[in-house]
């Protein structure tokens, strides 16, 4: 079978292709153009692909590409059909069929690729690709399949008019309307005064009122848009009626025949339809919704928006089977489909609207941070170098911190289990095994355990810091032995102190005023030795002001420690 591919560079920031899919990694033999490796669901946080070294043995050279776009056009031999007869449970053509064939040695089937240069091929399978491919067609990359050539033989002759606007016959356009280049206006459409239309495709028979701003949107046939509306990056299907002053935020999709009332602002990435959202949730969640009759949590934002529109509306009664909510939007009913799996992350990747600038900045910054973090050598890659097509590599992470966080979580979970009555010895055993499996030090264990204990202190309700102090004391007393088990050397205690600082600074600020008190208590309980505390104070001498907050707090105690060590020693010596 031959796959048609086309060069199309993915975005460096978002790691997705122009068409909204994730980057595809392919290994191709440069001479025979055979496809040797195909991966479309790469875990980008790992930044790791595993290739079978047998590939290099069989083929003289391999070229790896991540800038190819899969056109989803395949030229198959008759044998392909036979394969499908035998294995009828291929659900996804690429993930199951292609990858299966690539790994399969028995059948010996080969997949080749063909790269097209000046021709154009692409598949529309989400809203982002709909938008991109529409823009490519309007920009004539798909010549002669362009709006002003009646390639398929139907429809009226659209003319590419002056200023690069595609106009069908019988378009009535006001003199003051401002239409930018690369816009398509369908047959018998009327455009009102002072309207601005840019980068959009308008269908047949639309009536667009005055002072409307349409930007980057797709308006299908027979739509009525009244005066003063603002559409940006929206998709509006046939027969929709938008009343005056409606504002559609980027990424909105309005389905067939919906009427949107006056002055309503439809929030970003929402889908409005006359039909209820097909429910993919199980019965528990449905019952949840049935209980809350008014103001379900997701649609509070919508409710507040509705209130500002100063219109009378009534929330329809909730049917147990419906997961969306019917809203009367001024004059017509409709459902707002909530964004389900993936949340807003998926929405903005595959929406018509471009990714918002804030998010791009965020991605850029995280990218810079990643580049600065030291790259760890891949010491923990599996030694055999087997092809692991579907595994997510958990070894050889470049990021050390993440591992620690995972470990900490595990320790906390173990601790929680310990709370429920598991024997301390068992808890110790578990933590030890965790330490071995995650390749951690004793100090890390101690730190993690301390963290868990402190968190536990927070669980009990408290109203002022004294009570918190009391809680903390209680917990430390309870679990002091466990902690001591791991605090065998001063280094580990040092680590615990640092950890405590982290906690105070980061996660639970409530502890900060109590720092020195708890430190004192820990010393009294002989969990922390003075040596550790003193070396910690020593260390902090040379640090910045911001780091010295806690040393300042504990200054009294430290001073006392310094002055009175002989006493303790003498005491000990005496005893």
């Amino acid at each position, binding site marked *: 079978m031959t796959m048609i591919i086309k*060069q199309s560079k993915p*975005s460096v*920031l*978002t790691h997705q292709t*122009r068409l909204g899919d994730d980057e595809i990694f392919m290994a191709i033999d440069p001479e025979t153009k055979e496809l040797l490796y195909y991966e479309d669901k790469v875990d980008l946080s790992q930044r790791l692909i595993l290739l079978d070294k047998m590939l290099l043995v069989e083929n003289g050279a391999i070229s790896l590409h991540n800038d190819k776009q899969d056109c989803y056009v395949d030229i198959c031999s008759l044998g392909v059909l036979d394969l499908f007869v035998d294995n009828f449970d291929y659900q996804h053509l690429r993930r199951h069929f292609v990858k299966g064939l690539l790994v399969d040695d028995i059948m010996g089937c080969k997949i080749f690729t063909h790269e097209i240069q000046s021709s154009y091929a692409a598949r529309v399978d989400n809203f982002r690709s709909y938008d*991109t491919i529409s823009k490519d067609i309007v*920009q004539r990359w*798909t010549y002669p399949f362009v709006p002003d050539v009646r390639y398929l033989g139907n429809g009226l002759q659209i003319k*590419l008019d002056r200023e690069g606007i595609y106009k069908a016959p019988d378009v009535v356009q006001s003199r003051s309307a401002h239409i930018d280049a690369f816009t398509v206006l369908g047959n018998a459409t009327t455009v009102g005064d002072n309207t601005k239309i840019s980068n959009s495709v308008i269908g047949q028979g639309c009536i667009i009122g005055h002072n409307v701003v349409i930007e*980057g949107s797709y308006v299908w046939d027979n739509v009525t848009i009244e005066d003063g509306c603002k559409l940006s990056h929206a998709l509006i299907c046939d027969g929709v009626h938008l009343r005056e002053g409606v504002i559609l935020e980027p990424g909105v999709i309005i389905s067939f025949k919906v009427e949107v009332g006056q002055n309503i602002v439809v929030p970003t990435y929402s889908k409005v339809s006359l039909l209820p959202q097909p429910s993919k949730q199980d019965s528990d969640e449905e019952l949840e919704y049935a209980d809350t009759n008014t103001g379900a949590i997701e649609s509070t934002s919508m409710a507040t928006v509705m209130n500002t529109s100063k219109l009378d509306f009534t929330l329809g009664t909730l049917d147990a089977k419906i997961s969306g909510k019917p809203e009367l939007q001024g004059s017509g009913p409709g459902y707002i489909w909530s964004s389900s799996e993936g949340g807003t992350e998926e929405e903005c990747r595959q929406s018509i609207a471009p990714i918002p600038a804030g998010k791009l900045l965020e991605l850029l910054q995280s990218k810079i941070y990643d580049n600065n973090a030291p790259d760890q050598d891949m010491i923990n890659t599996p030694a055999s170098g087997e092809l692991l097509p579907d595994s997510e590599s958990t070894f050889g992470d470049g990021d050390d911190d993440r591992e620690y966080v995972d470990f900490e979580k595990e320790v906390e979970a173990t601790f929680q289990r310990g709370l429920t009555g598991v024997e301390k010895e068992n808890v110790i055993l578990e933590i030890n095994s965790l330490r071995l499996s995650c390749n951690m030090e004793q100090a890390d264990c101690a730190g993690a355990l301390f963290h868990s204990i402190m968190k536990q202190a927070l669980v009990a309700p408290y109203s002022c810091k004294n009570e918190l102090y009391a809680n903390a004391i209680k917990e430390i007393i309870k679990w002091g032995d466990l902690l001591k088990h791991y605090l065998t050397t001063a280094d580990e205690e040092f680590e615990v102190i640092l950890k405590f600082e982290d906690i105070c600074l980061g996660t639970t600020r409530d502890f900060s005023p109590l720092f020195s008190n708890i430190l004192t208590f820990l010393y009294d309980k002989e969990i922390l030795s003075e040596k550790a505390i003193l070396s910690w104070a020593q260390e902090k001498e040379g640090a910045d002001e911001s780091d010295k907050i806690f040393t300042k707090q504990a200054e009294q105690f430290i001073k006392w420690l310094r002055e009175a060590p002989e006493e303790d020693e003498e005491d000990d010596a005496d005893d």
Partner: protein
Amino acid sequence: MPDIQAHVNDFVLKLKRRKIEGSQATARQTAELLRAVVSHQRLPYTNQALALLDAVRDVGEQLIAANPVELAVGNIVRRVLHIIREEDLTSVASAVDGLGLSTNSDDDDNFEHDDHPILSAAAVAATARSTLRAPSLQTLLEGLPESASAPRPSSSGGDSEGKSKSAERKKLKHDVIEAINELIQDIETCHEQISEQAVGLIHQNEVILTLGRSKTVKEFLFAANEKKRSFRVFIAEGAPRYQGHVLAKELVAKGLQTTVITDSAVFAMISRVNMVIVGAHAIMANGGVIAPVGINMVALAAQRHAVPFVVVAGTHKLCPLYPHNPEVLLNDLQCPSDLLDFGEFSDCMDFSTSGGSPLLHVVNPAFDFIPSKLVSLFVTDTGGHSPSYMYRLIADYYSTDDFVVERRIKS
């Protein structure tokens, strides 16, 4: 006719998908298709010409709508319509002459109860004949007695009438088809006829400049070369298709000294050139030329340096419309992948990260419009003409009724 409609649909589809390249090929295939339409058309007893005209206009409108950029299609359709009208008139004229001038009669009575096409066309024929021939005193005087002496069909015998009628009917179709054959012949041999004039134009030791690759220009240069004229050729490559490279190879194969330059170098090299010879996509009624992109620049350079600018084109490229006519699409924006590689620039066209508005546009116009004042000479298969004369040729080849090819609304 169902089978002919299938052919028409096929051709329309080919035109829509831009599968046919070049005006000559398009013109020839259009003419052949219209010939088939004419031969398949069943003609009624009366008003044959009208029926033919309607049929051809019907098909013609579909063809023109399929590819409005290719003006040769419209030209040929109008030529065929003109042929039909012409043949109709000449057959009427010969019929009138044949039957002889019998009696003067009261026009009204005779005219009313006859359905003979000749009579109704007689008056038309007389006035039209005067336009077919150059107006002279002779024809003007001839016009008057002709209309007065209308033959009486009822006086002639029935059989001879029937025979003459059927003969005429067949004759009309036959004549039209013959004329269309001539037209096809003209289209196919236009290159030879144009090339014959090459010797008169290109003299010894001349330097010729051309842009891109025009078949007509190529044949023109070959003909001059055969007649042992020694000349050199500068070829501007003709971005983005770079057909100039292909022409360079062909000229070198024939032993001509060739220099290849970029389009942007034309102004720099024009002073070394004696004459510019280019082909055209279409010639408008006012003498303006629609030519491949870049030739307007060459024309301006030629004017600046007083170099003669010669356009060679067959008469099938002569369009009776004026450039200001809204039906005429002066340009065709083609695929931008001729200019830039899509893959290389795909990151400039990533709409998700660039705020949704495409920042990079790539435009690839196929044609240029050259105003008639920049053209020195037109060389067509009927000879060399100045731009101001082109409108006269239109009257020879087209009828004014056909300028707008529209299906007549049948009441």
